[in-house]
């Protein structure tokens, strides 16, 4: 076979398309008298960004979009990320002028519809997580972690233990943001180990918890996709030590309508709306990480919280600040566009819909896990929740790493799972199918994984040099880090 593809030059950068004088849109002309400009010394010279006609712009970005793999492209079993379908009607609603074009500082009277939605979502999340009160302020999961820890901190300060309780316990399976958030909040991180079943080791935890402990950050179900059956003991142990329990709710999808953080004794939990509640990830945000607090911490929630007043003729909503609030953690109220979508999602599905999600998410994961165990090592052989963490250690022995398997999956048309996380599992492949995928899709994925397991035996090189069908193959990351080329 001769090479029939004409050699393609490198994709042009945006700067390559620069056409001085071209313009990508029209703008209105000045319709008021011009004033004098300030002193020349204040004024800018050139601004070196490209000039491109509208068609060139559209082609450039449309073309690049096609180089991206999204949920709408295919199966996206990225563990811990809950890549579920993003309903299209949410996008339309978010573009309504009465939502998109309202100013954060306009008076509450002129934004009652927006406030009603914020209030509504606070309410829904409180019910779903079993919380006393909710603030939508955090702009992502990690931001929610920070908010939650600042609440815990304020609580201990209030109780005169601000200076003594300086440590936060974090399981060895935890997401990196947990530890980083603790550090941002001025805490020292103490790692709590897992037991051989993949559970947080309760006895070890009891050892670690003490008068210096501010709190425990616990992901439930854990990042191994496992539900800790001793969760009540854990919360008790922490509370007995005078500390508080922070819940990382990134994996809430697994237990929607099955159990509530608040009922289990968590003091505060954040929820990732861009995971559990289907708001689009956007290639890395926006997200939202509302914090949901139990009685213990409700007064410390970040501002704003929306309150409802029924004393008048109809309900009136206003932005307020809880009594002992940790204050504002960003300029305005919340990622309203994200809040709106999550609200829409929950309202469409209702309570029954919440349970359907967890049922299908968990069933999908267990089915996938069952089918894959023949070919891949499952370190923790248990019923899993929404995701299953495999290890590519068998393949590693053949010279094929988790990374290689991941890259080869691309050739089969799938997005790879999360790799090398949690770090406690060597060669981890963390697979989360979500409730949105059908058995048909999961079967196709399992078939591909099995084929790759075969290839790893018969033709490891094929796997190790994958992907072969993508616009670029493996990129030189070392070069990128050693000689940073960060802009045109």
């Amino acid at each position, binding site marked *: 076979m001769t090479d029939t593809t004409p050699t393609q030059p*490198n*994709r042009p950068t*945006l*700067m390559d398309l620069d056409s001085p004088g071209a313009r990508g849109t029209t703008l209105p002309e000045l*319709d008021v008298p011009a004033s004098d*400009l300030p002193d020349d010394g*204040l004024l*800018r010279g050139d*601004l070196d960004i*490209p*000039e*491109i006609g509208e068609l060139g712009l559209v082609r450039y*970005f449309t073309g*690049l979009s096609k180089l*991206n793999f999204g*949920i709408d492209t295919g199966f996206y079993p990225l563990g811990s990320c809950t890549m579920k379908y993003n309903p299209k009607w949410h996008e339309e609603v978010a573009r309504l*002028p*009465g939502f998109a*074009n*309202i100013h*954060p*500082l306009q008076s509450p009277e*002129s934004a009652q*519809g*927006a406030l009603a*939605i914020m209030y509504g979502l606070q309410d829904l999340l409180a019910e*779903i997580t079993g919380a006393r009160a909710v603030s939508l302020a955090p702009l*992502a999961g990690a931001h929610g972690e920070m908010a939650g820890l600042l609440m815990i901190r304020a609580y201990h300060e209030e109780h005169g233990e601000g200076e003594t309780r300086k440590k936060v316990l974090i399981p060895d399976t935890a*997401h*990196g943001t947990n530890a*980083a958030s603790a*550090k941002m909040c001025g805490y020292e991180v103490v790692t709590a180990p897992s037991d051989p079943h993949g559970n947080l080791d309760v006895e070890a935890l009891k050892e670690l918890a003490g008068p210096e402990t501010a709190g425990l950050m616990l992901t439930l179900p854990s990042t191994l996709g496992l539900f800790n*059956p001793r969760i009540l003991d854990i919360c008790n142990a922490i509370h007995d030590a005078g500390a508080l329990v922070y819940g990382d709710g990134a994996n809430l999808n697994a237990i929607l309508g*099955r*159990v509530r953080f608040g009922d289990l004794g968590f003091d505060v939990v954040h929820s*990732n709306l861009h995971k559990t509640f289907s708001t689009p*990830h956007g*290639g*890395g*945000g*926006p997200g939202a990480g509302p914090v949901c607090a139990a009685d213990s911490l409700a007064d410390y929630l970040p501002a704003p919280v929306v309150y409802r007043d029924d004393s008048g003729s109809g309900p009136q909503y206003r932005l307020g600040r809880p009594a002992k609030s940790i204050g*504002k953690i960003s300029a*305005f*109220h919340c990622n309203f*566009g994200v809040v709106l979508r999550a609200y829409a999602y929950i309202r*469409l*599905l*209702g*309570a029954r*819909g919440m349970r*359907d999600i967890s049922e299908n998410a968990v069933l999908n994961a267990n*089915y996938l896990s069952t089918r894959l165990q023949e070919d891949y090592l499952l370190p923790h052989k248990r019923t899993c929740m929404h995701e299953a963490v495999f290890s590519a250690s068998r393949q590693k022995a053949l010279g094929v790493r988790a990374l290689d398997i991941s890259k080869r999956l691309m050739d089969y048309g799938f997005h790879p799972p999360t790799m090398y*996380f949690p770090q406690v599992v060597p060669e981890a492949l963390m697979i989360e199918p979500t409730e949105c995928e059908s*058995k048909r899709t999961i079967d196709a994925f399992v078939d591909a994984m099995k084929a790759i397991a075969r290839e790893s035996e018969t033709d490891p090189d094929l796997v190790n040099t994958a992907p072969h069908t993508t616009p*670029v193959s493996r*990129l*030189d990351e070392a070069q990128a*880090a050693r000689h*940073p080329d*960060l802009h045109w």
Partner: protein
Amino acid sequence: MSSPYISNTDADRQAMLEATGVASAADLFFEIPESHRDPDLDLPAPLSEFELIRELRELSLQNASLDDYACFLGAGSYNHYIPSVVRHVTGRSEFYTSYTPYQAEISQGTLQTTYDFQSMVCHLTGMDVANAGMYDGSTALAEAALMACRLTRRSNVVVLDTVSPIYRDVIAHYMRPQGIGMSVLSPDSLAVTDADACVIAQYPDFYGRINSLSSCADAAHEAKALLVVSADPVALAMFKSPGDYGADIVVGEGQTIGSPTTFGGPYVGLFAAKTRHLRQMPGRIVGKTTDDQGREGYVLTLQTREQHIRRQTATSNICTSEALVALASTAYLTAVGPQGLAHVARLCYHKAHYAASQIAELPGYSLPLEGPFFREFVVQCPRPPSEINAALLDSQIIGGLNISDSIPNGMLLCTTETNTRDQIDRLVDALKDLA
């Protein structure tokens, strides 16, 4: 019948249960303590898409939209015109339904556009390097302050009192837990010591004024502290960049270039710095490199700064950020181009000056501040701004921010290219009537 967002049929579920060897789906949840298993969720009854769109549309109509109201409110969120192509770009579902581009081979779209974003932020701010964006302008500024502390190993920051009070509030909440002090000083009496990590200025300042940053830069640098600037990107098309003045870290609110005000979010924080500070930057960074066949491509780089690798020693806890909003900025800047952005800036400038000069002539109103300004200016009103704003609202006008706490009866007014002359004249007439 299950929801349209679940693809399995009953038959699928049955087959999967059998294959899994579980009698019923409920059994999968056996590890949840029985005492708390299966709570009754008291949620509103589910509704269809049709019904909810109708309901939400009605709620949306309860908000005074800037499409229907003349808006003179700014203070960190600005009503600029966003060309339709921007929404076309962000509406491509390959962009908005993808995750953070960890898998570079199938994420070149997000990666390359992020590289473009970084490039534009560098050029706008006059800095060497930029990241992929932060949550918003205020958290970007707070993180810049933390970064300055790490770089200088100092633990106090000086914030000018002309920085937005909202931003100052956020900075304070980020400093305190790490035991970092914060002094608020006037630019006129700026004293920087060798305990100070940085001087934080806003450009144009909170009151809309545009001043040289030279003296701030000098004061900071003399004390070996850094100059951190929160700059408005639209203003940067018209005025010297912070880089021109020697700033070390420049942040900004990206909403103004391509995203709607949407009640405060999602926005995106711009973040740029000098090259020598690169390894202390928070957030994601995209770099250009080549693949094993020599083809150019883009990857997330310098990830050893980040939480997923460094955990508690990372430069920040930020993970999910605001990539789609950054994409909107990139598309916006491409659409308007350098000439268009400068044109927008000039429209803002001239309209603000037209409005200010008209209002200044109204009996009872005055402009208490001096010096050049960009698209915002302070008006001293004959009555409390809260009263005036309430009356303006009835005339389909959203007035300026009430800043009576810092300037008696002060109102911070803003105009952009979306304010037609007719709107400005209506405002002036209405203010006259309210004198």
